[in-house]
């Protein structure tokens, strides 16, 4: 049996928070990339996709530099708001958010691009402003893809290892997520504990992909 439920509980909370943050942030970015033409659009796209290709340790390093106590943003956050990110659960959320952001943006952007621009034009011609057009036309027609992005982001956030380890560390009972707990279990020869966690993670991953397939299959 699983003796320590903490990593599972923490992982679910971190992944949910990361998925929500990346969906909030990512929806705006996906809309910008899908519907607007501006200088630097390709560069923005390339930068946002970095977490897919860059080594997690490198990404974690960047986050440490920016959000660590020595980094400008980290110091500002700590002095102004009393928020510490490094080696805290909040840091795990930050790490997971950055890691899963591209996985939200890609399907969300594709879904927004899939909404026929003529429909949005038709809504504008009927006297509606941009927020109204987005909420009544674009979003209802793209919600499946956006939700699929959210689910994928959640799954990716659940499984993050490298970035989380760099930023939040491995503090049992505080920042130790399932992936890190598995690593710990294997390192210390506790294979029975690892097996259960591995099976749990695999089950969740398969369920998530089934859900994503289902969501992206429906079309008007």
């Amino acid at each position, binding site marked *: 049996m699983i003796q320590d439920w903490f990593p599972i509980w923490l992982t679910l909370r971190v992944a949910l928070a990361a998925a929500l943050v990346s969906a909030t942030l990512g929806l705006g970015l996906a809309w910008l990339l899908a519907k607007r033409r501006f200088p630097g659009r390709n560069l923005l796209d390339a930068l946002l996709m970095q977490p897919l290709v860059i080594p997690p340790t490198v990404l974690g390093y960047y986050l440490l530099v920016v959000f660590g106590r020595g980094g400008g943003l980290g110091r500002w956050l700590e002095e102004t708001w009393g928020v510490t990110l490094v080696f805290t659960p909040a840091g795990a959320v930050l790490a997971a958010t950055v890691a899963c952001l591209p996985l939200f943006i890609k399907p969300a952007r594709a879904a927004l691009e899939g909404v*026929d621009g*003529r*429909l949005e*034009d*038709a*809504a*504008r*011609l*009927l*006297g*509606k*402003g941009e927020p109204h057009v987005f909420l*009544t*036309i674009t979003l*209802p*027609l793209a919600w499946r893809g956006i939700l699929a992005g959210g689910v994928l982001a959640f799954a990716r956030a659940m499984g993050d290892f490298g970035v989380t380890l760099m930023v939040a560390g491995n503090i049992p009972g505080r920042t130790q997520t399932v992936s890190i707990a598995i690593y710990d279990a294997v390192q210390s020869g506790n294979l029975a504990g690892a097996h259960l966690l591995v099976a749990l993670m695999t089950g969740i991953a398969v369920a998530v992909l089934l859900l994503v397939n289902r969501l992206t299959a429906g079309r*008007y």
Partner: protein
Amino acid sequence: MADPRGAPLLEFSLRKRLGGFSLRVEAAIGAEWLVLLAPSGAGKSLTLNLLAGLMTPDAGQIRLEGRTLYDGAAGVSVPIRKRRMGYLFQDYALFPHLTVSANVAYGVPAGTDARAEVARWLALLHIQEKAGAYPRELSGGQRQRAALARTLASRPRLLLLDEPFSALDRPIRERLQGELLALKARLDLPVILVTHDFNEARVLADRVAVLEQGQVLEVGEKERMFRRPRRHATAGFLGVENLWPATVTGAAPGGGCRVRAGPLELDVADGDGPQEGVTHLCCYAADVRLVFGGPPRPNSLSGAVTQIVPDQGSNRVRVQPAAAGAPEVVSRIDDYVLRSHGLRPGSAVTLWLPPDKLFLCG
């Protein structure tokens, strides 16, 4: 040009370059239907997109009911949603996730009774029984009715119709044209309809503008445009079947002028057309008569039938005149005439081109 009751309601002049294509159109219309007639790629839809604000012109102006919607020089460009233009897209662009009545209600201006407005427009366009249906459940004709109801329910001050009938089967197209004609009297607003089908212009237009490669070739009141187009390219778009290069050789004995087209010498009663240089001699196929016996008269030609093509209850009959080098003449002949005279390819016939039906254009 102007609305009979005063200043034109819509005035615009637009310029736009897109790659190698250059558009330059202008018009001024009142509460009337302007049909932009042109082959595809001539800039018809582009004109509508520029008017509606979906694309930005390089230069020009748009004024609707005295309000400046666009002025390139002054840097004015009113956003799409404030232009109050109803635009019926070629593919209708109905919102797929909304029912017909929700589609129609979408653009009903705030402060009006949306439910009553929706009911009214659905009834006017004979689609009330589909109020609860989704667009994917509608036929092409029903989609068009729903889209038109949605557009009109938003109370536009200008209606833009982009090839509204092109996606429809012929019987539906004809019925909808008839209904639109009936609706026309109730719509007190300027309408621009673009099409490549001169029959639509014939049915629905008050004024016709013919566009070619981004330029207005000719614009005028419908009757005049169809009766006497001034340019041969226009005449071709308007469906004039017989269109021959010709030269005016002098005055005709009975008034008007005498014209030579190839080896043919023909009298034209209306000598108002272009008199100088190369002109074109025009005659609708429906105005070319078959004659049997009787004394020879001016403007009659004998020849042989080369082809008979049935067309809407009548026939387009091509006749090659006997005179060497003469252009083929197209005549429109009813079925019963064809049958009673046993005409078929090879038959010898005499045609008469009535002088008052022939006209010249540049």
